């Protein structure tokens, strides 16, 4: 297929083009070059100005800390849980429970968590007035706490499902049932057997995904706006504030800050590699002493508790969003509203229809483009037998590891310069940078696992590659393709930063509207928007799960 030949270069251009141009568009203004705003000379003045901003280093350190703690706790919970329960009935139950959480947008999960843990949130209501004796919300800074603890919690509950699913995807490539049995027959406890025998090879496979979590958590904006500290906020939030400053000169300092963000994420990644070393050394010590660690009950119980409570936090949070969106009067400390009404929905819907349409169109278009490119790339890989290398994987992960804010800034500058800011195609393209990697990662494994002999038979029957693709391969992979589409769709729906920057406030989505409501604190309206934000990916996954069953209801060989 000739078309397939174009796909790999085109895909690289889609992934790396915005990255390269975006970084350039950040670096040049950071060093003073932005002719439109009168910057014609290279200078380090803006970095000096950044250096003088009060609390800037505290913001930066906070970002590094959030990135490391989030990743450490989420990865630790996932690894400990897989170690302690791989192969048990509980494992498959948790797997079914956690998987759908991947589709919940970060912002919605963060709002949900806020509604649970805030001083006037559900948890406080449930324990008031008895046993706390409170009849008004306590004066505590739980959400937006200066240590960013609630922000970390919000990130952890969302990164656990991601890391769990990535680990599950890597598991089949290890011989885990045999290895675990072997380890335990040598007298090792479950956790020790897993840590010593299985984890090193497993971790190697998921390492890039872990890096992506570190990078994401150090540079996240929407969760930080909802749950993060305010005086001072984490670095990315301060960058967004400068970016939105009507005084255009602050763009220079914002760009310098975006370069600083690159450094912050890099520092976090280097620190993470250091933690990897320490972890490996600890495992080596345990291994070299022949410690069996058979009494691992506490670790196992803790990992289960963490997994279950993170799932509970997201599900409970979504329930809170739904409840608030239909609540009438709801006084503290009542556990339920005194009345239910659809007024919030009725008021919000007319205003929501525009953003909703933008959300759906951008998500659909970017997902379709990503699917076509991915399928053609994989088809090309099949034809040439190349392209599975580590380098190719790194290129796909690159847009997920370089902090979004650092190159989206530059892209915004570039889009203004080209006059395509707030244009629909530019927004689709900006989403595509993040949708494409996820679609590719989600489809490539099932695609490669497909039995090639079906294609050989088809060729022997005289069918061309294109016809084989359309008549044999795509139908047989319907389920995987629809799942990848649902993943892509939900990634697009959840995008906050690219939409805010490239949409320039004129193209808004359900997500940007929801996050914009955070400052206002109107729980009913937030409930409506954040619930809608959750609903869209959920529907996409429902279709992806249900449709193949319907299409192939008489085909036993395609059931899961």
């Amino acid at each position, binding site marked *: 297929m000739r078309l397939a030949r174009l796909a790999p270069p085109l895909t690289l251009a889609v992934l790396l083009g915005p990255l390269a141009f975006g970084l350039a568009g950040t670096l040049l203004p950071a060093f003073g070059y932005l002719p439109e705003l009168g910057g014609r000379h290279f200078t380090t003045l803006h970095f000096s100005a950044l250096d003088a901003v009060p609390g800037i280093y505290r913001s930066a350190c906070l970002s590094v800390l959030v990135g490391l703690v989030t990743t450490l706790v989420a990865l630790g919970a996932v690894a400990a849980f897989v170690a302690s329960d791989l192969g048990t009935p509980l494992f498959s139950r948790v797997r079914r429970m956690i998987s759908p959480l991947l589709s919940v947008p970060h912002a919605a999960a963060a709002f949900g968590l806020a509604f649970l843990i805030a001083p006037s949130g559900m948890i406080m209501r449930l324990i008031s007035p008895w046993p706390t004796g409170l009849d008004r919300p306590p004066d505590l800074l739980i959400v937006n706490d200066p240590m960013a603890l609630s922000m970390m919690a919000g990130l952890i509950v969302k990164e656990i499902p991601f890391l769990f699913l990535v680990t599950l995807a890597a598991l089949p490539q290890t011989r885990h049932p045999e290895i675990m049995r072997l380890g335990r027959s040598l007298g090792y406890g479950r956790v020790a057997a897993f840590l010593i025998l299985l984890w090193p090879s497993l971790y190697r496979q998921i390492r890039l995904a872990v890096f992506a979590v570190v990078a994401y958590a150090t540079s996240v904006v929407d969760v930080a706006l909802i749950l993060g500290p305010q005086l001072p906020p984490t670095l990315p939030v301060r960058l967004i504030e400068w970016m939105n400053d009507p005084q255009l000169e602050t763009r220079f300092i914002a760009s310098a800050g975006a370069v600083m963000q690159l450094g912050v994420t890099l520092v976090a990644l280097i620190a993470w590699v250091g933690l990897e070393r320490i972890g490996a050394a600890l495992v080596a010590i345990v291994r070299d002493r022949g410690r069996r660690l058979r009494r691992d009950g506490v670790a196992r119980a803790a990992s289960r508790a963490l997994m279950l409570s993170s799932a509970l936090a997201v599900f409970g949070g979504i329930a809170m969003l739904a409840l608030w969106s239909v609540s009438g009067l709801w006084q503290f400390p009542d556990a339920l509203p005194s009345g239910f009404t659809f007024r919030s929905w009725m008021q919000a819907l007319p205003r929501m229809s525009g953003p909703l349409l933008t959300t759906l169109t951008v998500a659909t278009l970017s997902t379709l483009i990503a699917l076509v490119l991915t399928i053609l790339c994989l088809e090309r890989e099949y034809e*040439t*037998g190349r392209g599975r290398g580590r380098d190719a994987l790194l290129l796909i992960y690159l847009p997920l590891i370089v902090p979004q804010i650092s190159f989206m800034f530059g892209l915004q500058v570039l889009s203004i310069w080209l006059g395509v800011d707030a244009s629909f195609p530019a927004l689709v393209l900006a989403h595509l940078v993040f949708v494409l990697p996820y679609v590719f990662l989600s489809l490539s494994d099932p695609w490669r696992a497909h*039995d090639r*002999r*079906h294609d*050989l*038979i*088809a*060729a*022997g*029957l*005289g*069918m*061309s*590659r294109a016809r*084989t693709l359309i*008549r*044999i391969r795509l*139908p*047989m992979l*319907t389920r995987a393709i629809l799942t990848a589409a649902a993943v892509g769709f939900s990634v697009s729906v959840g995008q906050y930063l690219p939409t805010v920057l490239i949409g320039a406030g004129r193209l808004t989505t359900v997500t940007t509207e929801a996050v914009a409501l955070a400052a206002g604190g109107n729980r009913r309206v937030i409930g409506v928007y954040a619930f809608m934000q959750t609903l869209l990916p959920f529907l996409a996954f429902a279709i992806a799960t249900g449709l193949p069953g319907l299409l*192939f209801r*008489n*085909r*036993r*060989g*395609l059931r899961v």
Partner: protein
Amino acid sequence: MNDQTNRAGLELDDVRIALGERELVRLSARVGRGKTLTVMGPSGSGKSTLLAYLGGFLDPVFVATGGASVDGVDLIALEAERRRAGILFQDPLLFPHLSVADNIAIAIPQDVRSRAERRAMADAALEDAGMRGFGDRDPDTLSGGQKARVALQRVLLSRPRLLLLDEPFSKLDADLREQTRQMVFSKAAEAGLPVLLVTHDEADARAAGGEVHKVGLA
């Protein structure tokens, strides 16, 4: 006329397949219409790479040279889908998303355009296999023997130039294996197809009756 009969069937002209420095296969042979050449060897001996070379999907890590033609048509010069090299694997590999009849109909060359005619041909092939009325069934509900028969009818209806068999009987249980062997070889003879069989089972070679070439003995 003499020239015609000389060139009828499959001709392998000094086919060599190598992996790096190691030569796996080296073979010159002529297989007449309806006749079978059996290539025997242990697993890993590279006997399946010979089929891949003839079928047009050899993994690029192998280096292959030499000519292969059927009735004077040079196979190697053609793309895989134009070689019309019908292939049967250990597994019947029916397409799971298509009905039994569609599995067969999809093999019929495109010059038969009418849908009804294609369906009629598929039904006739099913009847020929003793499976009348199975057309609308889900292929996954068939027995092992039935699947093997559908796979054979499918490949025969694609009007192949030759038949490549990659240990097609090894996964069947004993009595079914004998029956399927008979069916495959008699159908191939009936259609006048040269057959290249790759196997490690002596009984397959005996049933095939033709010449035997051994690879990978060193």
